[in-house]
């Protein structure tokens, strides 16, 4: 036996009470974990390589197209390494509700610009070679159960072919994944040439152009030069880092971060109150025992620490279980949501922040009862003058 035994025994003195408190704490951390995972999904693509890559869109708005010729002209700008143009395809599979995020790209330049995409070498070559080929992200392939070699008709809700059809027949030649799980793989790419040649309207134009540079420290200058190149033309451009572009796009949904913060705040305010008052009550109930410990020679600081550890232990048991459940649930949810919110999952940063919250929760709820315990006066608590 040691002090830890006493802490544990005190915590579980009323087993039901301890379990109920743990459930409330567990729930708060479960909510924290799930919302954290959701926030990760939303802020996706604003980190890593996206900070170095540039993206050029029409200055009016990213939904307005750019002329085909810009591809070649941007290539001429000094310091530009690769230029990868792309168009929205607006795809759906079988039913209009089955939205498939899809772009028409120039395969070779696109794969070069996005080195974080991982291909099997033979599949990569097949995708680049085959005019009717499509490359499908792992998450999307899982969602629809698509495999390499399959032929699918992909409908577009934007485009029409000259023959009036809106379906493009695609061969799935490659399934790609991302290098480290931080990039979405919930989309499909098809050949721009194959897409463009049969279009009824809107031919020879792109919606955005992804650019990588020789030296990222030159990015500011290169962005400026690209935009100057097309100034005063009918299609002026706006060039920013991909991260800034993505962040601005997410921003349009409203302040999701703020809403999530409010909810997490409410959840934690709830457990702070519940755990805080219960701890005070629990310690008050055993004033007499604390007085006995003091009589035996336990010093006030030692008693203070024991109560504080009790609160911390409570916070950690509830918190770690909640966080663990959140991680499991996030894993489950990420499969279900793959097409909608890519890479829904917890990061180490989330986990460490959660642990910091557990420490804070333990300290805040423990400090008052610990202080009360420390100040118990033996002669009063033992009930005699």
């Amino acid at each position, binding site marked *: 036996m040691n002090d830890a035994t006493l802490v544990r025994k005190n915590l579980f003195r009323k087993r039901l009470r301890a379990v109920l408190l743990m459930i409330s704490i567990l729930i708060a951390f479960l*909510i924290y974990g799930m919302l954290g995972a959701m926030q990760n999904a939303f802020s996706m693509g604003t980190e890593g390589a996206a900070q170095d890559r540039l993206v050029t869109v029409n200055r009016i708005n990213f939904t307005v197209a750019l002329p085909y010729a810009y591809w070649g002209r941007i290539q001429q700008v000094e310091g530009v390494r690769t230029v990868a143009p792309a168009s929205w395809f607006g795809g759906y599979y079988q039913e209009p509700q089955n939205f498939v995020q899809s772009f028409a790209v120039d395969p070779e330049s696109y794969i070069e610009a996005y080195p974080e995409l991982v291909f099997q070498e033979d599949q990569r070559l097949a995708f680049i070679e085959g005019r009717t080929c499509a490359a499908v992200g792992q998450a999307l392939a899982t969602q629809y159960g698509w495999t390499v070699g399959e032929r699918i008709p992909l409908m577009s*809700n934007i485009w*029409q072919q000259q023959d009036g059809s809106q379906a493009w027949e695609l061969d799935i030649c490659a399934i790609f994944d991302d290098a480290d799980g931080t990039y979405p793989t919930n989309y499909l790419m098809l050949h721009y040439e194959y897409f463009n040649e049969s279009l009824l309207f809107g031919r020879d134009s792109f919606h955005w152009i992804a650019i990588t540079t020789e030296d990222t420290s030159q990015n500011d200058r290169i962005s400026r030069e690209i935009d100057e190149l097309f100034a005063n033309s009918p299609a002026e451009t706006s060039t920013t880092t991909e991260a800034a572009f993505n962040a601005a796009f997410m*921003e349009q949904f409203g302040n999701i971060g703020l809403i999530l913060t409010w909810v997490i705040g*409410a959840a934690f305010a709830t457990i702070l109150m*519940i755990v805080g008052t219960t701890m005070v009550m629990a310690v008050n109930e055993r004033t007499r025992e604390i007085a006995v410990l003091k009589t035996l020679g336990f010093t006030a600081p030692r008693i203070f620490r024991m109560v504080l550890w009790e609160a911390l232990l409570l916070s950690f048991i509830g918190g770690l279980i909640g966080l663990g459940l959140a991680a499991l649930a996030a894993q489950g949810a990420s499969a279900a949501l793959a097409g909608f919110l890519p890479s829904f999952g917890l990061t180490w940063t989330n986990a460490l922040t959660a642990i910091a919250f557990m420490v804070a929760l333990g300290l805040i709820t423990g400090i008052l009862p610990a202080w009360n315990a420390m100040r118990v006066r033996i002669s009063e608590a033992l009930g005699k003058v």
Partner: protein
Amino acid sequence: MLKQTTAVTLLNLRSIPQRWGMSLTTVLSIALVVGVLLGFMAMASGFRATVDGAGSDDVAIMLRGGAMAEMNSNISRDEVRLLEVAPGIAASPEGEPLISSELYVVADGIRRASQTPANLALRGLGLHGPDMRPQFDLVEGRMFEPGSAELVVGESVQREFEGFALGDSVRLGNNNWTVVGVFSTGGSVFDSEIWTELGVVQNLYQRGSSVQTVRARLTSPDAIEALREYVENEPRLNLEVLSERAYFARSAGGTTNLIMFLGWPLAIAMAIGALAGAWNAMYASVDARTRELATLRAIGFGGFPAFIAAMVEAIVLAFFGGLVGAVATWILFDGVSASTLGSGFTQIVFAFAVTPDAVVQGVILAMIVGFLGGFVPAMRAARIPLLAVHAD
């Protein structure tokens, strides 16, 4: 029995102030649960009210088949001509068919709250455009002149975005425009738009003579069938015909569902947390009164009154919690203006709406928490052994 129960219940409720810490915690934690639920519901119903309010049953909207959203649709001049002679469409006093060909493009606005750019819909409409919005009202200024770069802006745009005061010169895309009027459509989704004449948009955005949608005022809601039949039997038309209400209900569904799918599970999870808290508080309450309850038993009271008294305490506390949460949400959020990206890739401005229906649901949730949280402790109160009279 009733007398006993009333007596024990009153005795119990009167002693709440002695346990104010735990009682207050119960009330506040339940209030937070209800607050979170109502916050999400207010967001969802505000959004739905805005989008649904736009759709009327006697306006038909026609899009290219499979387009789903206006943004993706494309209708040629020839198709519009065919629609002008379609059946079921009401006529103006001058005898013209009441239809409006429309085309919208996306323009950047600056959101006041965050100072960040956001997409706005710049809609070009035909002469009869306003007739398609029954609640249309010009609040300030005048309508745009056909053929000139003049704008009328929705009230919500003016409220949420910078630089759209009457008389302001605004740069959208590559062109300068003048704001000549402000309109309202009674808080519907169109209040989040900027309007000008169709020809101006076609011209400045190089769209030739094509449009995205055709709206038509129907002679009656049932006339849509005649129109739909006409479109389906005309081989030169590949269009989808929907009532405007059906169209907006379809496009609002996703966002509203997303908000509700997030809101309810969160509220339920938090309710379980608060349930544990309430349970705990009720146990403490019963514990604190063990001796009192045993004494009552000793002098002849039954166990049932003790059970009812504890349940009443739990439900009263929960009810207050629900009420506090609902009132706080209403004060904090009702009418708060927000905007998000709608299905057309443009901003939809809406106001949080705390509805009576949502308040009732919130208070019911609170009382369920109180009931479940109080049940087991109340059972315990009913079973306190007589010997506890001597409890320390």
